[in-house]
């Protein structure tokens, strides 16, 4: 144990003296993650705010009646000779052309830019209010014909939301935390992974290390645990900075989704934090083991970087496993807890949405600890292979 600790301590000390490691494991998660989260929420909030305050701009061709109707609905109406051109050139969020047909009926053509979010929002808004205009026109027509317009009272449609109003924010947070945990915890810091095995080979320090009285098992364990600890640290910084910035964004930027400021984000504290820590530890151990094996097998740092750079691709299937639960706004299915790697994220996801099933948490922990033990066995066998340690 003493020698494992000595190897681990030396690896961590060296890592903290390396600027690249500090940037990748500390600075980027601590600065970049909040910058991205706050940036997205800020600009989305600004867009919603702009829409609420200023309204959408409509390029318009049509009757005075429709024009007045749109103006009353808080839309900026801009008469243009060519509606399509105005939309294409983004002078307006959406275009409306109202045409009178020979049979006295009206056709309203709504035009929007094929790939624009403000256009999509404007179309959704118009889809909500244009039926009222149609109703207004029909009432007018019936009145001219002397027909009672009570017919509109025959069917009344009312909408009602059930369930927790905060649910979306909670599922969104749970899903994002799971993804950050999976990517950061499992993939880890590629530079560190490269340095710890292939770097030793390249610098010629590995053979000297192997001639010391300490066993290869201790060397492997010390390096693996150091790599896992450093990856775990980076993951926790990512998760915490993500959670803090998410909380801040929820409190300060109104995205018009009806969230109670701060409420959903704060739901993560307590059990959620413990789930994040345990999940990050388990994922870092698994990812760290694979990183170590790949790095030790590689001839040099360049080869190791090439292989380790692909670890991001390995987690793609796991991301797809997590996705259905989020899109259906439901808890993770039971079978996910039996799948190593992804089950750590699944536990955290369920904890954040408030659906903790302890037997499933136990299964996930057992599976991951079993995988970690298996990997430690593989690592120690790996370190004893001449074809691996002398592959230079």
């Amino acid at each position: 144990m003493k020698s494992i600790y000595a190897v681990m301590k030396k690896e961590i000390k060296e890592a903290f003296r390396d600027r690249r490691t500090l940037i990748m494991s500390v600075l980027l998660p601590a600065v970049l993650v909040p910058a991205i989260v706050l940036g997205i929420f800020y600009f989305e909030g600004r867009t919603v705010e702009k829409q609420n305050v200023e309204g959408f701009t409509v390029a318009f061709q049509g009757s005075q009646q429709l024009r007045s109707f749109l103006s009353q609905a808080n839309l900026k109406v801009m008469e243009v000779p060519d509606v399509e051109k105005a939309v294409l050139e983004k002078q307006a969020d959406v275009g409306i052309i109202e045409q009178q047909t020979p049979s006295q009926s009206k056709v309203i053509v709504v035009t929007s830019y094929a790939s624009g979010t403000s256009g999509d929002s404007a179309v959704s808004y118009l889809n909500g209010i244009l039926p009222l205009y149609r109703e207004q026109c029909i009432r007018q027509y019936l009145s001219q014909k002397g027909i009672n317009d009570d017919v509109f009272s025959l069917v009344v449609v009312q909408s009602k939301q059930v369930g927790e109003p905060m649910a979306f924010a909670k599922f969104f947070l749970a899903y994002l935390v799971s993804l950050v945990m999976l990517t950061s915890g499992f993939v880890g810091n590629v530079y560190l992974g490269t340095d710890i095995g292939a770097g030793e080979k390249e610098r010629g320090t590995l053979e000297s290390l192997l001639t010391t009285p300490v066993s290869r098992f201790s060397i492997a364990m010390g390096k693996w645990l150091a790599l896992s600890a450093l990856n775990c640290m980076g993951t926790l910084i990512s998760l915490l900075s993500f959670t803090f910035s998410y909380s801040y964004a929820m409190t300060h930027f109104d995205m018009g989704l009806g969230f109670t400021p701060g409420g959903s984000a704060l739901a993560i504290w307590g059990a959620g934090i413990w789930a994040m820590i345990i999940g990050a530890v388990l994922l870092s151990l698994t990812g760290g083991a694979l990183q170590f094996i790949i790095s030790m097998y590689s001839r040099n740092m360049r080869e190791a970087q090439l292989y380790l750079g692909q670890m991001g691709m390995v987690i793609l299937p796991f991301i797809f496993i997590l996705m259905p639960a989020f899109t259906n706004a439901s808890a993770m299915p039971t079978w996910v807890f039996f799948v190593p790697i992804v089950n750590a994220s699944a536990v955290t996801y369920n904890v954040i949405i408030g659906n903790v099933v302890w037997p499933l948490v136990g299964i996930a922990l057992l599976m991951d600890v079993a995988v970690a033990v298996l990997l430690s066995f593989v690592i120690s066998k790996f370190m004893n292979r001449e074809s691996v340690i002398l592959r230079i």
Partner: protein
Amino acid sequence: MIEVEGLQKSFGQVQALRGISFRCEPGRVTGLLGPNGAGKTTTIRILSTILKPQSGSAKLNGYDVMKEPDKVRASVGVVLENSGLYRRLTGDENVLYFADLANVPRAEAMERMEFLYKLLEIDYGKRQAGTYSKGMAQKVNLVRSVIHDPPVLILDEPTAGLDVPSTVAVRTFVEQQKGAGKTVLLSTHLMNEVELLCDYVYIINLGLIVAEGTPDDLKERTQSSNLEEAFMKVVKE
């Protein structure tokens, strides 16, 4: 003491060692000479337990490299060709890291480090190893390899690429180790170094010991005026 008997090692189709045997006595510097690819590094790697032999036996300080590798490593200090230091650690930290791995108490390690620093004229132990020249790094490397005071010392090309002052410092170190009764196995290409340091020499070629004796014996037997000439005659036979 190093005792090697019938050591064999192959890498795929290549037979690196074909049953070599030799002995290194305490208080003596034994030279292991041979052209590139002769099997010197493979022998040293087996003696330092990095590689396992296919057959034969090797004992260091009475411990078998196959049966008691941990005890062998505790009894030996190895300086390999191209072995580097940890660049982001200071010289002191490099040395004390190896002391920790060898389970040497900190006070004892500090005292020994100071002694060896004085011997090798090292006054830059507080600087990060990444700032060292090759000679400076090699001197710290020597200190690191013997910080646990092993009875056996294996040196593979310890002066390769060093300037004159560093080479002299390394030779002084080897003499000091010999004087302290240590068993020293020295692998080198430099014949003047062999003549200056080695008490006994083994010449290895194509995985076999092809000649042995004191430097003077070898010169006499091959009727050569210097060791380089003797070496060439032996290797070409």
